């Protein structure tokens, strides 16, 4: 891709680095199944996750955030690019090495109703990864499962119950116990609290934070909820149409988003305070289809700041415009008064 030096974000701390990562799904048409079109779900992602941090990955449905999670856990094969985990390329791993990778990178899924096998007891669900990876004898596994149940706050005698006998929050605790059973280093949390009520959501967020402290876990926390991500994340990455458009320290991001899309996303998120001033930026239109990605900047059709350059020039690169803050926008520096601006135009052109 254009202007694509090897991405490293200056990160000696990175446990996981993604470079120009791509996943294109074919759209099959007709009986001969010749694919003429591609869904570019992940289309050139550069990202690093640091050891011990929680990186919040935020985007709207269809932006590719869940596919990105599946690429990292190797549940999907990438179409191109690089994934480096602890300094090793993971895309070429096979057999025992791949199994070892999967031990170290685990997932917590969104829906605790469909991600637990209804025919297995809670005990069997948590024991399964230990059994599959053959890490302990039967007696040791039993001790470990009871220990895990206690860790996530479920009484050990409930181990013989089936998923339908638990509430949504308890099911998610079982999913978490399963994910940490093998002492992973990185956990991809894919919308882990989105299906839960607010009061239960808070319990699960606290549990995830406690486990991180206790076991030194690294989280990639995928969510569409900016309020949850603000609370749990050290850094935040905003994804739009298969790419990262902004990567920043969480506190700095919530003080001021630099990419116009991040800014709109932040302003659209309802504030639970009736006295707060409202300055909602209402974006026009819907997310374009990832099959038919607009040329130029992918956001230009909905962007209140778009100028000619955004339409005609190739996609802007993800650039570090202030230390620790990476933004994929031609005009971000200029809009936020950081430089004279390279766009050659001044007034924001409204497309309304």
């Amino acid at each position, binding site marked *: 891709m254009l202007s694509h030096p090897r991405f490293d974000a200056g990160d000696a701390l990175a446990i996981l680095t993604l470079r120009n990562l791509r996943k294109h799904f074919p759209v099959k048409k007709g009986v001969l199944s010749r694919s003429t079109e591609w869904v570019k779900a992940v289309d050139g992602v550069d990202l690093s996750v640091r050891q011990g941090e929680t990186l919040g990955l935020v985007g709207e449905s269809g932006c590719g955030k869940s596919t990105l999670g599946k690429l990292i856990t190797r549940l999907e094969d990438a179409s191109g690019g690089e994934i480096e985990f602890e300094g090793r390329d993971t895309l070429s791993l096979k057999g025992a090495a791949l199994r070892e990778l999967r031990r170290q990178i685990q997932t917590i899924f969104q829906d605790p109703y469909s991600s637990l096998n209804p025919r297995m007891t809670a005990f069997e669900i948590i024991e399964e990864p230990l059994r599959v990876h053959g890490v302990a004898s039967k007696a040791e596994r039993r001790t470990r499962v009871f220990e895990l149940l206690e860790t996530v706050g479920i009484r050990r005698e409930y181990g013989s119950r089936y998923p339908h006998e638990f*509430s949504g929050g308890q099911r998610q605790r079982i999913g978490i116990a399963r994910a940490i059973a093998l002492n992973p280093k990185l956990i991809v949390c894919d919308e882990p609290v989105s299906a839960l009520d*607010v009061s239960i959501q808070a319990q699960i*967020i606290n549990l995830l934070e406690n486990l991180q402290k206790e076991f030194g876990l690294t989280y990639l926390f995928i969510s569409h909820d900016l309020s949850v991500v*603000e609370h749990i994340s050290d850094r935040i990455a905003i994804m739009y149409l298969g790419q990262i458009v902004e990567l920043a320290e969480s506190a700095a991001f919530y003080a001021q988003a630099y990419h116009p899309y991040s800014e709109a996303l932040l302003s659209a998120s309802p504030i639970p305070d*009736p006295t707060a001033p409202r300055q909602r930026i209402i974006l026009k239109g819907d997310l374009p289809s990832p099959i038919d990605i607009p040329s130029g900047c992918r956001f230009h059709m909905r962007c209140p700041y778009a100028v000619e350059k955004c339409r005609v020039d190739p996609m802007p690169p993800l650039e570090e415009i202030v230390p620790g803050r990476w933004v994929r926008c031609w005009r971000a520096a200029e809009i936020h008064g950081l430089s004279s601006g390279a766009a050659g135009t001044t007034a924001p052109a409204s497309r309304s």
Partner: protein
Amino acid sequence: MSQQVEGGELSKASQAAAESPMPAAADAPLLDVVGLKTYFFTSGGVVKAVDGVSLSVRRGETLGVVGESGCGKSVTALSVMRLVPDPPGRIVAGRIDFVGRGDLAGANAKTMREIRGNEISMIFQEPMTSLNPVFRVGTQIAEAIRLHRQVSKKEAMDRAIEMLGSVGIPSPAGRARDYPHQLSGGMRQRVMIAMAMACQPRLLLADEPTTALDVTVQAQILDLMNRMKEVSGAAIMLITHDMGVIAEMCQRVSVMYAGVVVEHTDVRTLFANPLHPYTVGLLDSIPRGRRRAGEKGPLKTIPGIVPNLLRLPQGCRFQDRCSQVHDACRQAEPPLAPAAPGEDGGDDGGHLVRCWLHVSPPETRNEGPAIR
């Protein structure tokens, strides 16, 4: 009270929402639900989904009904529309007074057909399942119009296209010929709103209308609902679990828990001075802005889970999760009553709470809903 709520105070609270036209006689509620009980008779026992709900919607206002899954907020709305599936559900007690129509709880099927989609409309969380997949969206809106208005097919279709335009759908004449699956989630919800508003209802029941939508699309739809409200003067009963949506959209709020209203007040008082321990817990467990405010440590939570509606405890429904539970809570269920004077932070008499900590002891007051 109503003048205060609907006039000066809220224009500050929610600028977009408060600009609706206010008729002079705004004090009589448009919809007045009193002691509503809707039970489901199942093989496992009687599920008391709505167990004595009292709430009212005034002309031109947005009333928020907030609560977690299973608290009975959707069943309340379905009861107003008389759309509770029977069997197993049945309205067993209470009144649903709708201005000009009397008690809907006892209304016959013909009356309800006249009211539904005409005087009271409803929009649901998932527009894909509430639109018919095999008819064009224009046809579906036109059908709703022809059901209630003596107009030709052509006139109905013209009106449908006009409505699609008014909800911000580009090239409405073309989109009217689309099937629901050809539209995005946000567009489908716009179609639902166009259909709901086509006959200019006096009341719109919106059940989690933006929960399935992305946040930028949610902003568009909330904005649209406020604009439609301004234009038509319709009142909205907005059901949601999202306190952020409540803060942005509503003038007054009823908080529900396990089948009853536990607190009711204007939106500013609710956020500034919540009284019921459940409301306090709900607001405290929202993660937004806590880190920015310098708060360290874990989020506050409400321990435990909602009680099983088949086996409600004696006394207060919130007792097992409440940090301030005491003997009175285990003996009798508190009534929904005005908060003790001086506690309600303004809006006197309008702050209702169902908690022994905030209402006078049982012997000094008479039971029953006191919504005004």
